[in-house]
Structures are given as structure tokens and as C-alpha cells.
């Protein structure tokens, strides 16, 4: 129960302290995880300014993001539309022309349109999966690291199980049982990839727990949850961002692999789908480099961008590692 505290102390501070009052504003009580995120968000934008790697990575992401957003404006054809020439011939395996910048596929589809539209699904899967993975990983890491004991044990054993399951086969099995939808790929990724970030965040939390300012929070009356979300979390969110950027790359790769193996959805175009299509149509034998190199390159760039960003964060947030 809040009780009125009688301020002790001599009256002489009265006048002087009154003069200070205009400079002070009460800090709002509701300081939960959201302000913590805001604080960490500030740090997020600071990094690219200081690291070339992060800048490059972010620029690449930006390009892809803009492509995904304005995909409709950028393409001329529907990606899955089977196209015919004026003479009712299938526009099959055409080389790059003014009309089809990257040529057409074996089924007469415009490759360029597929590539651009594929950006959407890549980013959608990548971002969603990455956010899920890191959200789960961070939460688990925070709770396991801070509370320790049986909770920690339980969570880490779950992590072990998730790590023990072979990744791609699991996603394939999931897709087979639950249908080849992108959401299932995301689900599979989220279920299996969280332990990596969880472990690292957990050890970060465990070392943060011993820091003086955490003890200060305890001594000034903060409860366990407040300490966890207001004091500890902002200090690990930087790591979370780092993992997110790497996870996006992995998620896209996974999605591409699954699609390539034929277990992905056949109604949405993705880069993996393109590669699978090219492979099944023996594009390599025909030397149709315009078909399979572009999606491959795109995958490489996006994953690379993710690693660049994470490298940038590492440089800025953990400079001591540079040696």
C-alpha cells in the first residue's frame, strides 16, 4: 500500500529545491517492455551509421524490400501465366529480349516477373520466420537465464530436443503432413531454429544478472519481472537484432531448399520454386543461365546481406572481439 513519505531534512533545501522543480518532470510509472523496445530500437539505427558492413547489408535489404513492395508495378506479366506468342506458339525457353528481360521458362512463363514476385514470398517467409525464431529464442533465453533452476533445465532440454531433430527432413515431413503451404515452412523453421539464439541470449542474461546495476534494481525495490523486462531485456535486444538478421537468411535458404526439393507450395512463386522448375526442365543442359542464375544470385545476396548486418552489429556492439 503506498504510504505518504515524510521528506526529512532541513528546511533550507526547501527554497533551493523549489527552484529545481521546473527542470524535473515525473517519469511515468508504466515502463514495461515497450519502452525497452524503443530504447533498443534507438540502438538499432545507430549501428549502420558506424559500420560499413551494416550499411551495405541494409542497403541490399532495402532494395529487396522496395522490390517486394512495388512488385506489382515492376512486372509486366503474371508470374505463373503461361504465355503465347502471336502465332499461338508457346513462348517457350525464349532468351532475354526486350519483352522478356530474363527470357521465359519451359512452360512459357516470364522469368523476370517470377523473380520479382518471388521477392515477396522470400521476404515474407524470411521476415516472419526470423521474427518468430528470435521472439521465441529471446523469451526463452531471458526466462531460462534469469530464473535458473528447474525452469532453466526444462527449457534447455527442450532446446536440446529441437536441436537434435534434423532440420530439413522435419520441415519436409511437416509440409507433407500439413500441406505444402508457406505458413508450414515458417512453422517448421520457428519450431527448430530458436535454440541457437536462446542459448546465446541465456548466457548473456546470466552474466548481466551479476552486474551492479541489476543489484541496484533489486535494492531499490524492483520486482523480478520488472528487472527482467525493463533492466535486462534492453541489454540483450541488441543480440536479438543480430540474430534476426542472420535468421532471415537461414529462413530464406530453408524455404528455397524446401521448394527446390518439391515440397513447397506450387501456387506461389518463390526463388526456390524457380530453381526447382529450372532443374526439372533441365535448364542447365540447355544452358539457360538466364533462368537459374538470377534466383540463385538473389538468394545469395539476401543471405549475404543478413550476414553483413550481423557482422556490422558484432563490430559495433562487441568491439573488444576485434582484437
Amino acid at each position, binding site marked *: 500500500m503506498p504510504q505518504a513519505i515524510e521528506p526529512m531534512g532541513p528546511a533550507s533545501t526547501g527554497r533551493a*529545491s523549489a527552484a529545481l522543480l521546473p527542470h524535473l518532470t515525473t517519469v511515468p510509472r508504466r515502463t514495461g517492455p515497450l519502452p525497452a523496445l524503443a530504447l533498443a530500437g534507438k540502438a538499432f539505427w545507430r549501428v549502420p551509421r558506424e559500420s560499413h558492413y551494416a550499411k551495405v547489408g541494409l542497403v541490399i535489404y532495402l532494395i529487396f524490400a522496395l522490390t517486394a513492395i512495388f512488385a506489382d508495378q515492376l512486372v509486366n506479366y503474371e508470374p505463373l501465366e503461361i504465355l503465347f506468342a502471336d502465332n499461338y506458339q508457346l513462348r517457350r525457353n525464349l532468351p532475354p529480349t526486350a519483352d522478356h528481360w530474363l527470357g521465359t521458362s519451359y512452360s512459357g512463363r516470364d522469368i523476370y516477373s517470377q523473380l520479382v514476385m518471388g521477392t515477396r514470398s522470400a521476404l515474407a517467409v524470411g521476415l516472419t520466420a526470423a521474427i518468430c525464431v528470435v521472439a521465441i529464442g529471446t523469451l526463452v533465453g531471458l526466462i531460462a537465464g534469469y530464473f535458473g533452476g528447474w525452469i532453466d533445465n526444462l527449457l534447455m532440454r527442450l532446446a536440446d530436443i529441437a536441436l537434435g531433430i534434423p532440420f530439413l527432413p522435419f520441415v519436409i515431413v511437416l509440409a507433407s503432413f500439413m500441406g505444402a503451404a508457406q505458413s508450414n515452412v515458417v512453422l517448421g523453421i520457428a519450431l527448430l531454429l530458436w535454440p541457437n539464439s536462446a542459448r546465446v541470449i541465456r548466457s548473456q542474461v546470466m552474466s548481466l544478472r551479476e552486474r551492479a546495476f541489476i543489484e541496484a534494481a533489486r535494492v531499490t525495490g524492483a520486482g523480478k519481472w520488472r528487472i527482467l523486462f525493463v533492466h535486462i531485456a534492453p541489454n540483450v535486444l541488441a543480440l536479438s537484432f543480430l540474430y534476426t538478421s542472420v535468421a532471415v537468411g537461414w529462413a530464406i535458404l530453408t524455404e528455397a531448399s524446401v521448394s527446390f526439393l518439391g515440397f513447397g507450395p506450387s501456387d506461389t512463386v518463390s526463388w526456390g520454386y524457380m530453381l526447382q522448375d529450372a532443374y526439372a526442365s533441365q535448364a542447365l543442359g540447355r544452358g539457360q543461365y538466364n533462368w537459374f542464375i538470377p534466383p540463385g544470385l538473389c538468394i545469395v545476396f539476401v543471405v549475404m546481406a543478413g550476414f553483413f548486418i550481423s557482422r556490422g552489429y558484432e563490430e559495433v556492439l562487441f568491439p573488444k572481439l576485434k582484437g
Partner: protein
Amino acid sequence: MHEEILLDVKNLSKSFILSRSVGDVIHGRHPQVDAVSDISFTLKRGETIGVVGESGCGKTTLGRMLLKLIEPTSGSIDFGGEDLASLDRDSELAFRRRAQLVFQNPFDALNPHFTIRRSIYEPLVNTRVPENQHDQMVADVLIRVQMDRMLHLLDSYPHQLSGGQLQRVVLARALVLNPEFIVADEPVSMLDVSVRAGILNVLREVRDTMGLAAVFISHDLALVRYVCERTITMYMGSVVEDGPTRDVINRPLHPYTRALVQAVPVPNVAQSHEPLALTGNLPDARNPPPGCRFSDRCPLAEDICRQSRPPLRTAEPNRRVACFMVPEMVAETG
């Protein structure tokens, strides 16, 4: 001047169980360290005690127990009449409003993501002080720690401030709740020499004007002399001497205190270079000597010292010493 007892520590002990090596397991050993052994003392309202000792003597552990940050293994701590071990959540919050901690490392004691303003307000928020009182209390404390000329720092982050400024903020945070009791754990040891005086002066002034009771932990006798009325010396977890600072330093009764005082250098070329009256090194905390823990290094040690632990006895009015070689004051009868 101060009559009412604020803090009553009785037979306080804390042992840490250590991880066992293979050798320990084979020999059936359970190594443990008695960080704090059977300590008893009282602190009156408004009194400042210095706790002096070398690393490993248990003073930091003691400080943490006094603030309920570590649970004792045995013994009790009464604060304002209440046993700390039996506090429920609400009473614990009330206790936190009355007892605070000043940290050693100013660079680590503040959350790096909080502005200074936020850090100072934090205790008020945590202990649910009514919001309409917040600003006034912060204004008061800023004046007390003499930060009223540094208001522009309020919106800065810890990494932008110097050590001395940071420590002032730490002090402000500790005092903003108007506590009755603080534990200051080596509050200036990480600061530059020219800056220490500022913090020490604030501590002295706050002691005088706020009637604050304080336990001041330090390995530096000179600091303790400047700030504390009473001094306790600790050795390997036990109190070996307890008395008014002036007397303990000018006329130490316990041989360890004597060595400590003698060992402190002064900025005077004509100081004594006489060898210290003690031998050897600090024994392994896992295997303290039987009997008096200081016996293997003490120039006065006799058989009784090696066989039993000397109790803390009154040797002079207001002075207690744990040493067989120091005669106990004969109590006046009647």
C-alpha cells in the same frame, strides 16, 4: 546523541559451499568457506560505522546481508525492530525505502540504457511512492548531493559522464528515498584521488544533516577515519575490534588492527618503515587455523590462541576486542 538502536545484528554467519574437485570427492571433503562467522553488533540511529578489512574478510558479504540481498546461513538481523528474514513482500518494499546501497563501481552501477533522470527516479517508481511527491524528492536529493549545478546531466546517459559525476548520481539514487540507513561499499575506490574528496564530503554532510545511519565498507583506513565515528575491523569473517574510530586508529588494541594501521602509508617522507608486526600471508579461507584465525600470523600468539576462538569482549568502555591477549575490562558492580 543517538540512542535508539536501528540495526541489531546477532550471531550472523554465512557460509558458501564450494564446488568440489575430484580430490575432494575421493576424500569425502565438502569444502566450504565461512565468509562471515558469528558477527554481532548494533548500529544506532544516525551512527556511521566503518567496516575495515582486507579482501576476503567478509565485509562485502556482510554488507549485502544487511540489505537482504544475500540470505544468511544463521543468525539474525533486526532492522527497526523487525527481523529481516520474516518480511513479506509489502514489508520488504517498506524496508527498501528505508535502507539503500551505494555501489563501488560507478561505471557499472547504472543501467546503460537509462538516462540519469530515469535512474534517479527509478527507486521512487519501484517502491510505489505516490507520484505527486516524486519531483520534490528528486529536487531535494539533487541539492543534497550538490548536483544542482549539473542539471544538464539529467538527460545524458552514463557513458557520457565521468567517474566522479557517476558516483554522485549513484549517491543521489541511494538517497532519493530519504533512507534511514545506507551501506556504502567502497564508494570511492574506483575514483581518481582528486575526485574522491567531493563524494566523501557529501557523505559527511549527508550524515550530519540527514541523520543517516551508515555502514561504510572500505579497505582504506584513512577514508574510514574521515567519515565514520566508529570502526569495526574484520579478519577472515569475524570482528576483531570495535570501537570509536579515533581510538581504534590511534591506539589499536588488536594486533591485526595494529598491523593494519601501521601498514597505511601517509604522504609524509618521515614515516616509519619499520617491518609490520605480523608474519606470513592470509591463510586459505577453506582451511582457517584452529582457534583464533589470526593466530598463525600474530606476534602475540600463545597456546590458548591456537586452541580456541577468542570471543568479542569489552576491553574498555565502548571498545570490544576479540583477543585473548587483551584483558577484559572488569565490569563495575553496583
